[in-house]
């Protein structure tokens, strides 16, 4: 049996319709979109502009030239933050974000701190939701940017971005959101939601890897990160990846077309899995928000069972875990830790990322494996025995433990 893909937060397969429209631009239509002295270039330029329009339509941007093409959302996040910060004459000022952002935001924030900027993290609750009053309280006279994700890739929590945008605009601040996980599942509108900059990735919405975009509201100037021929309104030089932009555009078009129907289908599938887990397995914890969460995301901790060992038991399913044993850093998920989830619970977490190809039958088959393996692994778990004997695992005096550093 082919492995069932349930890791759609990491990436999604390229849609056949997307590949089809890209193909000519990988073969016969090889023109450079900047070389418009001939037909080749003009056709490439037209294809890029169409792609830009399709992206603009997905997010409600008023003008296609507000869409800056990038290599992906990591670059988009970097460009939004560094581009805006380094534009400031005195290279100082204050940025507000949250601790569960993607590393592209967190590491860029850290970089900017070293350059003399200051960064504050708005408090989040145990579901990952930002506290709007606390956020408002963090705003200082020198604050120039709030950057908060539209939805989280691990726990699926959807932030109140329209409210955050309104707060930013009340204070004449710019609001950037990394909307990578939300697009195609949540209706995002940059005008209605008071968004000034928004990061997009093609491969998270069934488009190709290596291409993304940054929406930049008209009138905002950014320092380019990549200098050169002055492409992309001078904000991002480099010959355009025409096939990539065409694919991004088509993926955006499909995401917009299918938003309502696919969200409803994914929600039903997700709830089938959630109800199955909660009704058939005891001692589980849902990580992330109970209701404000992405239609395709579930994140459960199965107490006393380590995440990687449970994934192994779910043979034939591609999943991911917040366990240290699946990360190169040997650290449990920083997102779960930021929610004050105890380490033992973080190590026991599994993320389920549903997508277009998943079916009820697959979910039912996965449930059988989960039920069987959680039971089997708990019978093997010394922590499960201790819990049944009434020993508190949190306060037990564990041995000094340094084998991770051997």
């Amino acid at each position, binding site marked *: 049996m082919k492995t069932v893909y349930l890791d759609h937060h990491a990436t999604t397969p390229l849609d056949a319709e997307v590949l089809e429209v890209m193909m000519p631009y990988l073969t016969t239509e090889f023109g450079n979109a900047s070389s418009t002295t001939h037909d080749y270039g003009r056709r490439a330029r037209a294809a890029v502009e169409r792609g830009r329009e399709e992206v603009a339509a997905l997010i409600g941007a008023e003008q296609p030239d507000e869409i800056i093409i990038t290599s992906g959302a990591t670059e988009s996040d970097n460009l939004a933050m560094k581009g805006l910060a380094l534009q400031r004459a005195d290279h100082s000022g204050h940025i507000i974000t949250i601790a569960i952002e993607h590393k592209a935001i967190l590491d860029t924030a850290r970089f900017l701190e070293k350059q003399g900027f200051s960064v504050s993290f708005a408090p989040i609750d145990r579901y990952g939701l930002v506290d709007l009053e606390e956020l408002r309280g963090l705003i200082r006279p020198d604050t120039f940017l709030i950057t908060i994700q539209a939805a989280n890739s691990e726990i699926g929590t959807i932030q109140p971005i329209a409210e955050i945008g309104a707060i930013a605009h009340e204070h004449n601040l710019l609001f950037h959101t990394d909307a990578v996980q939300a697009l195609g599942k949540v209706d995002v509108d940059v005008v209605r939601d008071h968004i000034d900059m928004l990061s997009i990735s093609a491969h998270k919405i069934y488009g190709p890897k290596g291409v993304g975009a940054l929406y930049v509201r008209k009138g905002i100037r950014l320092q380019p990160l990549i200098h050169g021929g002055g492409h992309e309104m001078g904000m991002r030089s480099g010959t355009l990846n025409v096939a990539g932009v065409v694919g991004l555009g088509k993926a955006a078009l499909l995401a917009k077309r299918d938003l309502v129907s696919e969200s409803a289908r994914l929600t039903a599938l997700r709830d089938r899995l959630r109800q199955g887990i909660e009704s058939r397995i005891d001692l589980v914890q849902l990580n992330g928000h109970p209701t404000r969460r992405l239609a395709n995301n579930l994140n459960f901790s199965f107490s006393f*069972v380590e995440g990687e060992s449970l994934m192994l038991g779910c043979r034939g399913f591609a999943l991911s875990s917040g366990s240290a044993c699946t990360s190169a850093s040997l650290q449990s998920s920083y997102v779960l830790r930021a929610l004050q989830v105890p380490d033992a619970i973080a190590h026991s977490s599994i993320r389920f990322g549903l997508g277009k190809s998943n079916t009820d039958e697959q979910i039912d088959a996965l449930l059988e494996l989960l039920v069987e393996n959680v039971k089997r692994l708990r019978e093997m778990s010394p922590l499960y025995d201790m819990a049944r004997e009434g020993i508190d695992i949190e306060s037990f005096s564990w041995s000094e433990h340094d084998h991770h550093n051997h």
Partner: protein
Amino acid sequence: MDAWDDYTEEVMDHYEHPRNVGVVDNPDGVGIVGNPACGDVMKLSIRVENDHIVEAKFKTFGCGAAIATSSMVTEMVKGKSLDEALQISNKAVAQSLGGLPKIKMHCSVLAEDALKAAIDDYRKKKKEK
């Protein structure tokens, strides 16, 4: 991630069909090592006769490598004298499983540590008697 690809057949066999799961009745020595906060805990219990380990059972909370090395170490110690058992290193356990991915080698330290802790526990108890 499809971790099955990272592990040898022996590791997967011990993960799927672990040997000697449980706790020895009235154990002569028990070692509990690891920490749930680090993602792995192993409890190893042994029965000792004439300074030889005649029975060893484990319970492990941990990844596939931790479970497989736990299972393997219970097989390796059976019939060994305590001094012989103390010579078993985490590398030897991993080798018996056909090797572990580099990043998982630290998981095998848990098995070695649990074995030492169980033998220590036995010797401490014996002294007290």
